[in-house]
């Protein structure tokens, strides 16, 4: 039975791929780019400008010196903030307040980053990231709680709390946390131990045994997860085999030895020790990031880890199952014994934590003063809503789309320089993408695509007005 159903199921998955979930966003993107090209052509009056502009955009985003690095730097906050939006969407919440949560995360991080000094990086950096996450989470939990208790719609409350967050951070920057030695209005610099490492600095940082130990721990943890996943999959096949083939039954099973019983742990320890010992040596011998003006930081790795974590949390855990149920049908969630209050507040808190981490990484790894200046951001938060929609709220889709947006943002300057086309054409194209993604009938009409299947809708939460 299993083998029979395999082939059609695979075929089904393939046909679903060409269905709305993947096809529509792609067409939306292509259409927006084409329209952008037409607008450039019409406003400049020459088709050559179109090629200049797109050529400049691509060169600026990828091939210019440190172009790719700068694109990736812009991608990191996009990833975190889009994941934040996506977590909200999954729970049926439209979190427009990621920008505000980004600020609250940043200011919390600055607080912990400069107050706690003398700590080793292995403690200080995680602590600061945690503080940033907590700042964003608490800020986002407020509209969640208001929604459940009073019915106040989160779209309204999150937007309004954005302004409160902006003004609050300004107050803190110009008041209690202001760096009195600087002419610019900005906070004091965070301790070096709290900084997010630049990739250029990695060999030097690893010379500190404590840092090497931290990296070893992480490597061990990853090795443990990978090894356990592989082993579980193998066990599953072994467990399923007798059912399908009815062979191997009655075969005496070998008692597993201590090594194979704890094989994941062993793998983890080996990987950890190897990393901790070898990596500091190897990176001193050879390291690809030698340009000291390259600002690319290890936040890129954090972003990938965050995408994996969100994918796991939403798709593979009971927590995610509850969030998705509450988002898809709150009545059924109540019926099944889930708490709406808990899940709405939790979803907002997770969303806010991700946004807070985005702000934290910007302070600890990107901001030149490693501090929070008065005029800090960005508009990352608002673009992220578009990214999340375009990626259909899929964490790995977000990695790709965020890079696209990051690259466009970064390439815009060179595009303006080399073609004379205003860089704001990028914002226009992004707006067009958002328009097409949120109004799929336009795309369906343009490309004569048949109506989507029932139940396969865009990730937008159902209700705008009133209580969901």
């Amino acid at each position, binding site marked *: 039975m299993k083998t029979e159903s395999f082939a059609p199921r695979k075929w*089904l998955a393939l046909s679903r791929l060409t269905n709305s979930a993947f096809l529509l966003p792609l067409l939306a993107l292509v259409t927006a780019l084409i329209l952008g090209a037409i607008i450039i052509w019409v406003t400049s009056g020459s088709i050559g400008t179109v090629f200049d502009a797109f050529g400049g955009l691509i060169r600026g985003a990828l091939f210019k010196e440190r172009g790719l690095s700068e694109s990736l730097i812009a991608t990191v906050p996009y990833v975190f903030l889009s994941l934040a939006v996506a977590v909200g969407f999954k729970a049926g919440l439209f979190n427009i307040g990621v920008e505000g949560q980004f600020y609250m995360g940043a200011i919390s991080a600055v607080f912990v980053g400069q107050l706690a000094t003398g700590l080793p990086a292995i403690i200080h950096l995680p602590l600061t990231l945690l503080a940033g996450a907590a700042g964003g989470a608490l800020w986002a939990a407020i509209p969640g709680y208001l929604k459940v208790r009073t019915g106040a719609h989160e779209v309204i409350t999150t937007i309004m709390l954005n302004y409160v967050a902006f003004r609050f951070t300004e107050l803190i920057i110009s008041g209690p946390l202001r760096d009195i030695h600087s002419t610019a209005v900005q906070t004091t610099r965070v301790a070096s131990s709290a900084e997010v490492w630049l990739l250029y600095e990695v060999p030097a940082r690893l010379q500190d045994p404590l840092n090497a130990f931290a990296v070893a721990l992480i490597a061990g943890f990853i090795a443990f997860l990978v090894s356990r996943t592989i082993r579980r999959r193998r066990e599953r096949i072994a467990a399923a085999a007798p059912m399908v083939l009815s062979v191997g039954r009655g075969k005496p099973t070998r008692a597993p030895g201590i090594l194979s019983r704890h094989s994941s742990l062993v793998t983890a320890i080996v990987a950890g020790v190897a990393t901790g010992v070898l990596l500091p040596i190897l990176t001193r011998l050879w390291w690809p990031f030698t340009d000291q003006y390259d600002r690319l930081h290890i936040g890129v790795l954090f972003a990938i880890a965050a995408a994996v974590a969100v994918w796991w949390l939403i798709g593979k*855990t009971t927590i995610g*199952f509850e969030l998705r149920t509450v988002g898809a049908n709150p009545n059924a969630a109540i*019926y099944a014994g889930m708490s709406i209050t808990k899940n709405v507040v939790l979803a907002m808190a997770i969303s806010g934590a991700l946004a807070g981490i985005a702000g934290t990484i910007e302070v600890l790894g990107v901001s030149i003063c490693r501090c929070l200046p008065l005029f800090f951001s960005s508009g990352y938060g608002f673009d992220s809503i578009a990214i999340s929609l375009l990626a259909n709220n899929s964490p790995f889709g977000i990695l790709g789309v965020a890079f696209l947006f990051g690259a466009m943002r970064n390439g815009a300057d060179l595009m303006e320089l080399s073609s004379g086309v205003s860089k704001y054409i990028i914002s226009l194209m992004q707006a067009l993408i958002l328009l097409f993604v949120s109004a799929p009938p336009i795309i369906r009409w343009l490309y004569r695509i048949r109506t989507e299947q029932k139940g396969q809708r865009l990730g937008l939460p159902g209700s705008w007005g009133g209580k969901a």
Partner: protein
Amino acid sequence: MTLALQAAGITKRFPGVLANDKVDFDLARGEIHALLGENGAGKSTLMNILYGLYQPDEGQILVNGQPIAITNPHDAIAHGIGMVHQHFMLVPPLTVTENIMLGQESVLKASRALGQLALLDRRGAAQRIRELSQQYGLEVDPDATVRDLPVGAQQRVEIVKALYRAAEILILDEPTAVLTPQEADDLFVIMRGMVKTGKSIVFITHKLREVLAVADQISVMRGGKMVGHANPADATSESLAQLMVGRQVLLQIDKADPHPGQVVLKVSDISVRDDRQHMAVDGVSFEVRAGEVLGIAGVQGNGQTELAEAVTGLRHPVKGSMSILGHDSTHATPRHVIEAGAAHIPEDRQKHGLVLSFSVRDNLVLCTYYRSPFAHGVSINFPMLERNADDLIRMFDIRAPGSDTLVGTLSGGNQQKVIVARELARQVKLVIANQPTRGLDVGSIEFIHGRIIQARDKGAAVLLVSAELDEIMSLSDRIAVMYKGRILDIIDAKTASREQLGLLMAGVASRQ
């Protein structure tokens, strides 16, 4: 006998489905023609083609012997075809008159020069509505707001709306699904009156008793084909059911005598408020023992919904107490009730029972996803979910392409089977089944009834709430009749008669 409507060789294909396969359908003038069939048999597709909502791939439609093209509902209305949908197409905040005028607004003559800004002739329209309602015995108040009307009255508004548009042929799609037995009988009288004046009616249903009571001619569809015609004089429920399902069907459930054990659910003098803060349940007491079915009968809206919600923890009583197996459950949450061993088949399967955008697999663990063996800590064990789904799909005969099929794409009967499978497959001590077979076809009803009795025989206490008297009478061991939030009487199902229950449902107490 002249034919009012004729469909010849209608074929309609949807991607992967042959919904109608060379279907012929003749409707004589002045007859009530019942169209029988299970869910997915192609009845609705055929009617939607006649009403212009779908275009047939092949075949022809003739009205009064003339071939016509119906490309949209306007054409259908122009040819005198009117349809009353199962889900009403009314605008709740508007009045009856406004709803009926909608799309065919008549304006005051004097203001006609104003074009689009002309004034509506509400009074004239209301007058015509009154005439129509008198002529056919369709009691409607033209000035009432639709929102305030009970379901039965809303249905009458729909019928008047079709008549107002001069419909000669009326298609009634499952009209009795939302009615009480008494209201259904009233509707049949109205239908009889209409055909007497020369109208023709297509009556879509799957309730065999009603077909035999009211139809002049019966056509049966199965799997997209027209499989047979019958005359109500010669047909029996059994023969029709067999034609519909394609095999022998057990209409009367065969069940052994109950062996009531200990008290599982004890409800003492509870009162429950509804959403509008009215006292919907007013001092109700009863007990359900292990191994018996207590049926709660009553016309819909007499507090049964609120009672079931209180028992399952979805609503809290303002007075009284409840206990499950001796443990107080008066203020228990839904999860507490589930963990105490209760299964709940909710009244509204799409609102409460299922997450339509989730797969069959995920819906099957909606209440148990967090427990072993489906989860270790927070991590969900997907292979176990998969195996659970494959098993239940087989055991409960859920017709789905696979466990990853979205529940929203299944038919109503299969959606209900997903809920029944989820609730009854686990070890349960108490089953609360609220309208477990509403809107389902004969095959699914038979199946679900069998499962409920099976749960009873395995020692579960069953609280069955249903507005279908047949269902209550065939499943219950004891029957409690609710009227205006109170239980008027609890009687032994063996000695209960339709008449006696009907009187109690109408509020006439009959304590001997």
